């Protein structure tokens, strides 16, 4: 069988739910408008100032060419007739004033729009970040971290770029087109009509460009995204690439993606290659026409040479900014699409909301956990039909059972990563829904299999359990959990940077650090969901010894595939299809003939 064609490698994926139409239409959506107006509302007063500044700047800019024309028509004749240069000096003085006013107004305008723009971006960043942090883990799992990140980086960058690189100039350009049009009409109506006759053509060309480039732009974005993903994944998986001699096929795929990217870019560049010279051509032709018609009128004495000069100067200012619009257009498009996506995110209601008036739990938390009639399901799959469970304070409970029995779901409900569909989970008799985030998680801490570490020092990662604690407490925690030895052996000890996601450490070492972190947090209830799965036997033994002390005076919920971890529990719950089918001390259950006894036998056999 021959190698599969290059295109088929990607496979099929479900549609992305955040694929939105790009372009101006996105800006018009209600949620985007709401977001925009709520972000701009604090700047209402500055906006009026902005309008005043921009009008001033425009008038001053218009005055320049007009004064030049005036200088030619009114300033020169007196000199020619030996009546002195007084008028000319006056006009030049006026020109100087206009220049200074224009410069100052423009600078003030640019600084003010820049500040408003940056305030806008900062506030949007804050809102989006805070909102993502408020959304439940269920949302994050569904949305994937990749998209959470790209919303806050590439989308935010698109908005920031527009704010930074030109929205102010865009405003100046559009406004100057309007004012120049009016000024020309005021100077000489027939000549102005000739000058503006090309305007419909300009509009038509711009509309054509906008429509075509929206498509081309989108294709380019899609093409570059594929190039980037393939590039980054190849580098991240370089071991697999090389070990499986993947290089030639990877290169064929990359070359194909790269070619598509080039073609897509070329398409959009070619649109600009037509649009920009097209605008130039129309502008130049208009100048030619104005020269012809204006020449005749000047010849007939209907207008003076100075007016003609003013027109020629105005026309240059009229067309040049229009040409630049093509450059802003892409930035404008991607920013409005990005804003639409962010508005969508901000509209997402948090499914695990914090209470408006939280219950003060008090300082002495005992740690009794209870499930009362708890029902829970993921979308169409019911996981817990109706669970009633009381875990007295101080008890260590192990949950065992086959995959999908609901062990992890119970752990997540206790840590309030989810809320039950019906019934209530409570801590010391208080419904978890009534506790604010910080109180709840000071009392209940979950350690999971993934044992995520932040980039930064080992000490910093452990201190995450209790920010602001001093070094000796951190080392004590590490020592208690059996992590002190390996940490001390690291190049910079506790100050060693663990790198992104703890990449410098092995999976087992990461788990030890996250154990130390949980230990330092000193919660009343500790939930361990497969928290020892990556440890080798000696480390696990250390952790287990530590757990005996740690768990002595607190409530604990343990989930583990390895039954060795389960043995330290006071009580074992065997789960099946979301129901508790066996419940008792481990020693008692092993002695019986139930499911736990069977599992235990199988496990003992696997140890050789």
């Amino acid at each position, binding site marked *: *069988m*021959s*190698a599969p064609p290059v295109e*088929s490698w*990607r*496979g*099929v994926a479900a549609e992305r739910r955040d694929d939105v139409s790009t372009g101006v239409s996105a800006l018009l959506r209600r949620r985007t408008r709401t977001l925009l107006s709520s972000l701009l509302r604090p700047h209402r007063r500055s906006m009026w100032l902005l309008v005043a500044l921009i009008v001033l700047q425009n008038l001053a800019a218009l005055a320049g060419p007009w*004064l030049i024309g005036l*200088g*030619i028509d009114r300033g020169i004749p007196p*000199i020619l007739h030996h009546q002195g*240069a007084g008028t000319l000096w006056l*006009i030049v003085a006026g*020109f100087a004033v206009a220049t200074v006013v224009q*410069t100052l107004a423009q600078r003030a305008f*640019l600084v003010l729009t*820049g500040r408003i723009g*940056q305030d806008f971006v*900062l506030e949007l*960043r804050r809102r989006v*970040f805070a909102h*993502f942090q408020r959304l439940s883990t269920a949302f994050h799992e569904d949305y994937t*971290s990749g998209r959470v990140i790209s919303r*806050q980086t590439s989308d935010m960058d698109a908005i920031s770029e527009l704010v930074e690189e030109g929205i102010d100039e865009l405003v100046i350009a559009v406004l100057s087109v309007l004012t120049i049009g009016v000024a020309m009409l005021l100077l000489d109506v027939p000549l102005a009509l000739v000058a503006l006759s090309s305007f419909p053509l300009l509009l038509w060309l711009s509309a054509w460009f906008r429509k075509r480039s929206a498509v081309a732009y989108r294709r380019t974005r899609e093409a570059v995204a594929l190039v980037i*993903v393939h*590039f*980054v*994944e190849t*580098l*991240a998986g370089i*071991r697999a690439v*090389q*070990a*499986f*001699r993947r290089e030639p096929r990877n290169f064929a795929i*990359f070359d194909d993606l*790269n070619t598509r990217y080039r073609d897509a870019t*070329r398409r959009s560049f070619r649109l600009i*290659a037509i649009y*920009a*010279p097209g605008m130039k051509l129309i502008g130049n032709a208009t*100048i030619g026409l104005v020269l*012809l018609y204006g*020449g005749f009128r000047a010849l007939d004495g209907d207008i003076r040479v100075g007016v*003609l*000069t003013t027109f020629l*100067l105005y026309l240059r200012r009229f067309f040049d900014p229009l040409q630049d619009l093509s450059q802003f257009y892409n930035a404008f498009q991607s920013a409005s699409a990005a804003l639409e996506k962010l508005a969508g995110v901000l509209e997402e209601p948090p499914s695990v909301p914090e209470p408006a008036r939280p219950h003060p739990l008090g300082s002495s938390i005992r740690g009794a956990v209870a499930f009362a009639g708890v029902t829970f399901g993921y979308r169409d799959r019911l996981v817990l039909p109706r669970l009633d469970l009381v875990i007295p304070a101080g008890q260590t409970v192990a949950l065992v059972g086959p995959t999908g029995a609901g062990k992890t779901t119970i752990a997540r409900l206790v840590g309030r990563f989810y809320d039950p569909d019906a019934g209530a989970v409570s801590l010391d008799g208080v419904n978890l829904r009534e506790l604010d985030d910080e109180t709840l*998680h000071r009392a209940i801490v979950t350690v999971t299999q993934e044992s*995520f570490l932040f*980039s930064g020092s080992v000490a910093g990662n452990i201190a*995450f*359990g209790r*920010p602001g604690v001093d070094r000796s407490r951190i080392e004590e925690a590490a020592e208690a959990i059996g992590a002190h030895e390996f940490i001390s052996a690291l190049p910079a000890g506790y100050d060693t940077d663990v790198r992104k996601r703890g990449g410098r450490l*092995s999976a087992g*070492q990461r788990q030890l650090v996250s154990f130390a972190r949980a230990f330092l947090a000193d919660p009343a209830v500790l939930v361990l969901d497969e928290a020892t799965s990556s440890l*080798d*036997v*000696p480390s696990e033994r250390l952790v287990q010894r530590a757990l005996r002390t740690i768990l002595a005076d607190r409530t604990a919920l343990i989930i583990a*595939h390895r039954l060795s971890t389960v043995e330290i529990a006071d009580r074992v719950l065997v789960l099946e299809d979301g129901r508790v089918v066996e419940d008792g001390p481990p020693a008692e259950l092993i002695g019986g003939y139930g499911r736990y006894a069977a599992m235990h036998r199988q496990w003992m056999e696997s140890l*050789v």
Partner: protein
Amino acid sequence: MTTLPADRSAHSPLASLWRLRSYVRPYAGQLVTMLVAALLGVGASIVVPLVTKTVVDGPVAHGQRDRLVPLALLALALGMTEGVLIFIRRWIQTTATLGMEKRMRDDIYAHLQSLPPAFHDRWQSGQLLSRATADLSAVRRFVGFGLVFLVVNVATFATVIALLVRLDPLLGGIVALSLIPVIVVCARFERGYSVVSRRVQDQTGDLATSIEESATGIRVIKAFGRRRLMAEAFETGAREVYDTQLAKVRLRATFWALLDLVPNATLGIVLLLGALAVGQHRLTLGGLVAFITLVLQLIWPVEALGFILASGQEAATAAQRIYEVLDSRPEIVDRPDARVVDDSPGCLRFEAAGFTYPGGRRPVLQDINLTIAPGETVALVGATGSGKTTMAGLVPRLTDVTAGRITLDGVDIRDLRLTSLRRLVATAFEEPILFSASVRENVTLGTPDATDADIAAALSLAQAAFVDELPWGLDTRIGEQGLSLSGGQRQRLALARAVIGRPRVLILDDPLSALDVTTESLVEKALARVLADSTALLVVHRPSTIALADRVALLQGGTLAAIGTHSELMADVPAYRAILSQESEEVQSR
């Protein structure tokens, strides 16, 4: 034996830019055409004001109707020619520069694929990506735009100044002098702006890290209720970006204001002195109009000079960064007389093999002597950090030994073609590596000619029946851009990928760690059949997997402390017992 980073000082930025000429050469003809088109276009635009002068001084001043029409039509034609020439230049540019950019990107990618994992461990993929995207764009912009307009603008500048001086020497001289502050302002601005821009980039990068961690670590943040802590860190980062952005805004505003001020002031002076000159009959009225229009035409080329120089500097730095990567030599390559081997009995021997990190003082592995007979399975046991994974990586030459050697059927693996060696040896890594591609593509990574029957067999061996339940079966896209799989599912696909080619030698690095007890025992049963006729090195952390091995090797302190059967080592080697005995003291003490 790993790649050393290219010496940064070996080539200056400009020298690096010059080295890129081999990529430009195929498009030299097109570049010259672009240059000619640009020169002619600018030439046409310079002539228009002169035509205007003739119109004002001739037909308008003397009432010659018949001469006005041809002159105006000439201006019209010149203007339209300029438009067409710009079109030609831009159209050619899209083919030439994008073609060059694509070729360079292909080369960077191909080169990166050939560099050993040690290189990739040192370099962040983001750093490499920015070389293949942002840096390449910088080079493309400079070649397609900067280079052309560097020539064109200097030519324009010289021509226009010459024209102005001819029209009026005094005024022309003043205009020429007034442009000096513009160039100075532009150059200073560019320098300041690039510093601030880089700072914004760095700070945005830091902010992105904080965003990334807040997203990937969301479970831990929620588990400890540390939302506020994360928000504070984010706020600090976002504030830094904000402050720098404001500095940038102020810089930009001052620059643009100055850039408008200088030419306008010049115009004012030209108006005053020009009008006086007309009054004294030293200059015609048309000459003054032409003068003013020409001065306006000078502004852009002069302003642009600053940007072009900056773009040149940017491109040179980018070229240097690109060559940093392209100059890194792949150290793990075929020797000149490397052998092609299609099949082999599969006798794997470590002969006094050792490995030390470059610059490392203590060896990670030393004096490893181990023979794995054809068809034999040896389990590698050792505490965390004892070098098991490093040892596994030596066999497919992801890393080369720094002492001793490894042989396959008596031949040093460094004397085999890499493709031969890696066809004979298949590896399943500790962290399963999946790509954003179909399941089929992921499983047949090293065996593109595998049949559907081969794939089905490999998947069933790895207990990966879940593939049938995926929405599009084998064609379902998985990985970051597709369906996300559980750790156990990922591991089973990685295992299927390793066994599918029926490799002579299998390296399995803790391949079952993420599986639950039931699945684990099913996979073990199936794996036992495959291992019967492959030579295998099995890294294990858990006692249950040891049953698959014929013999066990204990790795301690970077060297093999004991080799034997599981029961022998359990009986005789206390260190081995300590690592593998599941009977924890706690249980015993009950």
